[in-house]
């Protein structure tokens, strides 16, 4: 038992639960409580990172709730707590005074607490609990503005898609038990018997791909944009999507043991990075662009897990978390101020609000892979490991990395364009803009953007080495000098090209199709190919239930009644008639039998004589 470690998850989960249930009474104090809780959690988080405790609590037979802090968990704990704290501060400016702050803050704390549970869980039941509660919290947060029905639809789609993938974890738990892991501890999974091992691997991979919005599950992330920007900032960075990447990094040994897990994961990751990179290029809405980019960037984490680059994957995860949360906060602040998130209408947004503009540019530079910022460092690390596995992975990965340069530079250029004349006409498309930026929102974006830039220090070889040691047994291959040169030159080249492209307004070939903007139309396909058939099956079965099964059952008493009537009318009268006939017959026989009984002796003598004669004849003949 370690009370410290338990308090790490109990404090945010408990206070979040209470706050979410407190109703409008809690609204006034919600921000203060939320800040205080995050401060306490930060202290606890730092302490557990230092102390590295383990904790276990009896739950199911032979499998408790178990938490443990190792290097990977430690880094994620700090990331989750830090980003949640900043985002909560930002949210103060986003939510109106009359909105349910208590519900919002409570749900955010639940969300973060569930993520903390996920990253410290040391066995499958604990992981699954954090994992699914996080999904439910995301549902409530995406649909936070519940009066708008479309947002609730988005929440349902996001929850059901991730839960469909979560079934993999249930499957993995059962298979692990069947394969001989009685405790379901994550560390024992690579050792379970063949056959079941395949199922465990498949289950975990599917669940992780779903959560981190990799192909083909990526479409829920587009829907997740319906929530407040603060929710996007957290959901796209340190929680939810990060959980999938984390689980795969955690499961490296399992992926290796299965034989096929690593290549499948690596290729899914790099393919997602590539395809969603293209989707991001095609977006016309800033938040949608950032969302598609999240899938693509998480693709590099997944690729890292597939090529066994624990350090690279972790740096990518953390660097992306800081970068993307900063970008979402800026996009959210602009949405509040200008009432739009359409890229075209955001022209000049950075000039209107320079503080935000610089923060946005800094984070965007990191996302674009400009050296020496954090995501450049991370990607080179991941790609070095990919090259060691397969050159093809490296090649596709490099192209995908350059795509992130394309879409980010495109967005950054747009927001720095001069403010167009008559701009006021096109603004306020989505909501009524306030035309001001809260100082808190600006500082929050700055904190995260600086994080995104400063994490680039992890590229310094000695620091990278200590991170390797911190994270675990095997050291990653470091990128060779030529790789750094290639990535630097290519990135700068592409950035210049995009600038030139934008200036000359050359149309983007292929990407004009609706399919790219619609995230490859997977949601529509799922509706047609999966949801609709299920609904049709449901209606058919319901009709069958009412019209066939129920009628069949109801027919039994009806048939019984019919039979009863039949018996009453036919059989009974027939029976009555036959009884009458029988009694009549018996009566007739009786009267016949009475006839010889005349009471006259001579007639009896004659009868006796005849009978004796007959008897004599029988005896003689016999």
């Amino acid at each position, binding site marked *: 038992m370690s009370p410290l470690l338990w308090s790490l998850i109990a404090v945010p989960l408990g206070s979040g639960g209470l706050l979410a*249930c407190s*109703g409008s009474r809690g609204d006034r104090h919600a921000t203060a409580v939320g800040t205080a809780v995050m401060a306490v959690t930060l202290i606890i988080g730092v302490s557990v990172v230092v102390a590295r405790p383990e904790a276990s609590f*009896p*739950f*199911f*037979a*032979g499998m408790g709730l178990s938490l443990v802090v190792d290097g990977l968990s430690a880094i994620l704990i700090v990331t989750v707590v830090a980003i949640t704290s900043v985002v909560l501060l930002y949210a103060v400016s986003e939510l109106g005074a009359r909105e349910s702050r208590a519900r919002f803050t409570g749900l955010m704390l639940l969300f973060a607490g569930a993520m903390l549970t996920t990253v410290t869980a040391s066995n499958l*039941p604990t992981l*699954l*609990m*954090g994992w*699914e*509660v996080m999904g*439910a919290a995301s*549902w409530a947060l995406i*649909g936070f503005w*519940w*009066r*708008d*029905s479309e947002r*609730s*639809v988005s929440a*349902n789609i996001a*929850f*059901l898609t991730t*839960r*469909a993938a979560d*079934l993999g974890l*249930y*499957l993995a*738990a*059962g*298979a692990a*038990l*069947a394969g001989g892991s*009685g405790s*379901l501890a994550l560390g024992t999974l690579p050792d379970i018997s063949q056959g079941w091992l395949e199922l465990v691997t498949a289950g975990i991979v599917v669940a992780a791909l779903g959560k981190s919005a990799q192909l083909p599950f990526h479409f829920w992330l587009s829907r997740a944009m319906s929530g407040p920007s603060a929710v996007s900032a957290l959901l796209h960075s340190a929680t939810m999507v990060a959980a999938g990447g984390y689980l795969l990094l955690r499961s490296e040994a399992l992926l290796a043991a299965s034989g096929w897990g690593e290549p499948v994961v690596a290729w899914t990751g790099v393919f997602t990075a590539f395809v969603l990179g293209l989707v991001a290029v095609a977006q016309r809405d800033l938040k949608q662009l950032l969302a598609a980019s999240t899938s693509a960037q998480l693709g590099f984490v997944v690729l890292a897990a597939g090529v066994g680059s624990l350090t690279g994957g972790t740096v990518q995860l953390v660097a992306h978390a800081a970068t993307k949360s900063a970008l979402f906060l800026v996009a959210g602040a602009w949405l509040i101020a200008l009432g739009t998130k359409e890229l075209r209408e955001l022209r000049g947004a950075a000039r209107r609000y320079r503080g935000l503009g610089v923060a946005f540019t800094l984070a965007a530079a990191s996302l674009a892979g400009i050296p020496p910022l954090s995501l450049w460092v991370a990607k080179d690390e991941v790609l070095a490991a990919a090259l060691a596995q397969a050159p093809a992975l490296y090649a596709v990965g490099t192209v995908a990395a350059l795509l992130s340069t394309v879409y980010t530079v495109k967005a950054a250029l747009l927001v720095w364009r001069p403010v167009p004349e008559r701009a006021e006409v096109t603004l306020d498309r989505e909501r009524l803009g306030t035309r001001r930026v809260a100082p808190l929102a600006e500082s929050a974006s700055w904190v995260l953007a600086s994080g995104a830039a400063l994490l680039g220090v992890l590229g310094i070889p000695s620091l990278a080495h200590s991170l390797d040691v911190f994270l675990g047994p095997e050291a990653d291959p470091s990128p060779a000098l030529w790789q750094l040169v290639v990535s630097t030159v290519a990135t700068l080249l592409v950035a210049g090209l995009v600038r030139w492209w934008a200036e000359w307004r050359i149309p983007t070939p292929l990407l004009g199709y609706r399919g790219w903007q619609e995230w490859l139309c997977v949601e529509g396909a799922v509706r047609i190919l999966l949801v609709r058939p*299920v*609904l049709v*099956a*449901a*209606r058919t*079965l*319901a009709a069958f*239930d009412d019209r066939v*099964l*129920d009628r069949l*059952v*109801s027919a039994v*008493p009806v048939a019984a009644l019919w039979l009863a009537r039949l018996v009453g009318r036919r059989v009974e009268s027939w029976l009555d008639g036959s009884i009458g006939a029988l009694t009549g017959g018996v009566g007739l026989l009786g009267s016949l039998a009475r006839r010889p009984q005349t009471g006259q002796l001579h007639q009896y003598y004659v009868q006796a004589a005849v009978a004796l004669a007959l008897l004599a004849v029988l005896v003689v003949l016999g």
Partner: protein
Amino acid sequence: MNVLSLIVFLPLVAAAALAFVPARLGDRVFTWSWGAAAAADLVLVVAMWIGFDADGGISYEQRLRWMPSVGIDYHVGIDGLALPLVAVTAVLFLACAIYSQRRLRSAKPFVLLFLCLQTVSLGLFTALDLILFFVYFDLSIVGMYFVIAAWGHGNARKSALKFFLYTFVGSLVLLLGFIGLYLAAEPHTFDIVELARANPLAGRETYGAVVLLAIGLGFAIKTPTVPFHTWLPPAHTDAPATGSVILAGVLLKMGTYGFVRIAMPLLPQSWREYAWIVVIVGVVSVLYGALVALAQEDFKRMIAYTSVNHMGYVVLAVGAAGLIAEGDEQARSLAVTGAVTQMVSHGLLTGALFLIAGVLFDRRASYDMGSYSGLAGRAPVLAGATALAAFGSLGLPGLSGFVAEFQIFTGSLASASVPTALALLGILITAGLLLRAFHRMFLGAERLPDTPGSTRRFEDLRSRELFSVLPLLVLAVVIGLLPRFLLDVVEPSVTSVIGVIGR
């Protein structure tokens, strides 16, 4: 007097005493006395739980001669399988008593009927004699018939009759099975403990199969499993809210409890032989129940079909536990423990959902999901309670449904891989249908059905409603977070049942 018998008969004694109180003294006398009796009974159950020794054996046993010439005794006792169900029964009846603290239609007979039903339900879970069990089983049907027929709405009398005839036929088949067991035992007996020890049908395959068929059919109708479930939706839809709570929370459990109490330990060989049929029936119930629930427009009818789905998990688990060829003992124990947990969890969560349905019906006399929208604005507490119950019902961790379903799936996968994998789809479909229902009724723009005579306002939960729903949800959360207090009681008894099946 044995404390167990005291618990069982306390409501009946209260009913007998209340029967002499004239109805003109007012409804309050009856509803308050009912609440007091139910609360006292719950206190006794809690005391019994505290004193319970979880060693897998039977505690609080009592045996009185009843009809010795035919081997029938008043034999009661409680073990880890029965105690949780006794507790859920006591909790649900108390919740019903709290919920009914208002103007009831003819309070006196209603209260008397519910008190009698409570004795019958508690009696069934404590009975250790087949005939005693059967008597309670039948009386529960009779009692519920009157609840639905006299206090229901809509097409109540027809639904009640259907419920009565269907489940009564089931009970007769069950009786045939019991008599089959009785005749097979030497000396003849109806005693469950002795029958389990003697294992009278060992090595008699055909005989065992026929008896299992009879008993299985009887319990399958009561549970109900597909395709014997069609009495359930109309009975629920037309029953009063409290009737639905007891029907779903207690009466359905009589079927699933019968599987673990009677069918499995008394017919271990036949159970193993035909476990695959049970598994198939279970998985069909899971998927069929979920899909048909998805297509419903009536909130209460939808919950009724999710009951078919949830009971399907229980049937799947007890079936998988019989597939002994594969899967070690830990997995099979886990599955059956999950099944018992599911009975408890379903009682609490579905009980809460049916009370919520009753709240809606009180306000607007309609269960039609399409006619409500945006209720969360007017009734945030109701919305919160519904969301919690719905998430619990779809198996969200932190609530009791997850504790049950995780154990069922994890334990069943080893021995019944494909059926369990299919059944997993059930939790996705239930998630879809419950979220969809919640979305339609509680979120979006506000819209209320125009019911003649209703006010414009839509009230949030009143205190008696809150105090009946909330404890059920709190218990679901407690089980979801700290399940050991329950599992410590259940596991030893499950281990003995698994041991018996392995014979």
